[in-house]
């Protein structure tokens, strides 16, 4: 008498298991993105998608390449560390195509008071004024050169 006279049962069971395993592996391979696990337990391509976003702010280095004259004036005054796009707004499109995208000059009346209007919560060493009383209705750039606003640094107009 053979030891495994009913081995056919085992074979069919083994085939069923094998098919199950193959189906699982195939499904897993089909469902999980290829980049999953490249850096950790997440889709690696998600980082590429995050990196691909277009820029809005060009960065001050981009501005300074073409506008060294403004940098020269700015670097001597109180606004030396204020980046260009802080006042002029996001200009990556202008940096990419300076010919056709022309930036609009900021409105001084709104721009200056955004930082320099009096507020008790501002650091006390920060220059701040009551705009109505200080300017008497005149625009700020009547007296101040926005790129170098202090009078001592030759910023007076």
């Amino acid at each position, binding site marked *: 008498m053979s030891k495994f006279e009913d081995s056919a049962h085992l074979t069919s069971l083994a085939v069923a298991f094998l098919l199950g395993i193959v189906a699982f592996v195939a499904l897993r391979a089909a469902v999980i993105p290829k980049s999953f*696990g*490249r*850096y*950790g*337990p*997440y*889709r*690696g391509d*998600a*980082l590429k*998608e*995050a*990196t*691909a*976003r*277009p*820029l*809005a*702010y060009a*960065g*001050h280095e981009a501005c300074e390449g073409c506008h060294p004259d403004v940098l020269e004036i700015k670097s001597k005054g109180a*606004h030396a*560390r*204020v*980046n260009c*796009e*802080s*006042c002029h*707004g*996001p200009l990556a499109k202008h940096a990419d195509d300076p010919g056709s995208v022309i930036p609009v000059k900021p409105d001084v009346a709104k721009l200056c008071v*955004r*930082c320099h*209007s*009096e*507020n*008790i*919560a*501002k*650091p006390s060493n*920060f220059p701040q004024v009551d705009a109505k009383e200080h300017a008497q209705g005149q625009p700020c750039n009547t007296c101040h050169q926005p790129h170098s606003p202090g009078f001592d640094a030759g910023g007076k107009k």
Partner: protein
Amino acid sequence: MILNRRQILLLLPAAAVAWDFVLAGTPEEAPNYKMTDHWWGMLLDITKCIGCGSCVRACAMENDVPDGYFRTWVERYHVEDWHIENPIVDSPNGGKDGFPPSGETGGKNFFVPKLCNHCTDSPCTQVCPVGATYHTPDGVVLVDYNYCLGCRYCIQACPYGCRFFHPDRHTAEKCTLCYHRITKGLTTACCEACPTGARQLADLKNPEDPIHAFLKTHSVQVLKPHLATGAKMFYNGLDGSVR
């Protein structure tokens, strides 16, 4: 080659270590930016913040943040004498339009800019049921918008209130630390727009970064340190009333 039991036992740990490298995969493809060379954080100097809201506007323009939602915002604190447990805090439109005079004349008044703390042990990534939010190898917490189900669990979990539900995309949304900018060698939009240098992006892995000199010479704190989130937004001049 026939191995005996001793040799196999010695080989197994080596194989396990090797398998770890296999699982870690190949390094990133971007040729000029090596993720493992960076560990991003930010320095926020409360003594320099003037509450102009430039950062909030810049963030909204750079990242198309919908109106009324904020990836970064500025709060104004008013603390009366010893009442540091009960500060009066306001943030009209996230500080996007600046702050009108509060009418306060005394006490302690200051601005606190806030954003995602890009925690090393972030509660938001721990609770995500589908693994849609994750840590990048350079220390930034991001959301995979294709995986996010919009269950809002992470929004509840963030102790700093830095996440929101995107009204159009219907996924969780948060500060990416301008990942598309910092990987190109630029600073974040908020740091670029900050006129006083109250915000400075910091690469903690770069020994040349000025943050190291600053940290050595100043009393710097993170928000809610008792939660041990490993926050990487370092605040200089942080008052005890700030939550």
